[in-house]
């Protein structure tokens, strides 16, 4: 069974600083897709960033970047220049399938950005 682990239930960061959220996963597949989703207090989940396992280059989206370590099965999210609007639950997610089957979410990390 595929699993996703997020070892940090809660984190906080000062506004404008950088924070890294950890995620590890377990799979025997060679090709798969990894995601970070953000769920603000209003609860509507949105995609932050995604990474295809076959790509060696780490994905970046503005202030968000990932550190993908395939051998270690690690997929951390770095948020630079943190903003108050980044306060949310962050979920690491994973699927091995182009059709999104067996889509698995981690338990989440609650991030608080402090003024």
């Amino acid at each position, binding site marked *: 069974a595929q699993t996703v682990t997020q070892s940090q239930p809660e984190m906080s960061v000062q506004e404008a600083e950088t924070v890294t959220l950890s995620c590890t996963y377990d799979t025997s597949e060679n090709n798969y897709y990894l995601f970070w989703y953000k769920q603000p207090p209003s*609860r*509507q989940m*949105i*995609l932050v960033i995604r990474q295809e396992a076959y790509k060696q280059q780490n994905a970046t989206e503005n202030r968000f970047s990932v550190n993908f370590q395939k051998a270690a099965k690690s997929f951390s999210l770095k948020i630079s220049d943190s903003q108050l609007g980044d306060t949310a639950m962050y979920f690491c*997610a994973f699927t091995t399938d182009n*059709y*999104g089957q067996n*889509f698995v979410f981690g*338990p*989440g990390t609650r991030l608080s950005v402090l003024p």
Partner: protein
Amino acid sequence: EAGVAQSPRYKIIEKRQSVAFWCNPISGHATLYWYQQILGQGPKLLIQFQNNGVVDDSQLPKDRFSAERLKGVDSTLKIQPAKLEDSAVYLCASSLVPGRPAYEQYFGPGTRLTVT
């Protein structure tokens, strides 16, 4: 473009009662998902539709949960009878027919169910 719509937003029922949730995905999205999110946990996939066919329902408690997606558009998720442990937020998401690069799921606001 309009997002994923869900109703109702909140529902309180007593155990052993029945309840139904409705989801309208983004127009043109062929894939629809229902997730259960218990407080403090990540979403758990209950069922996935591709058009009006079921792709994955391996985690759906079929003795009490059912879902349908008639005509490949709107979907309903039903619980009958409800148990206390069904208290959760039920999220609906949709995505285009996936292909490379990896697709994106668009989530609705969710329905918060409280079973007393």
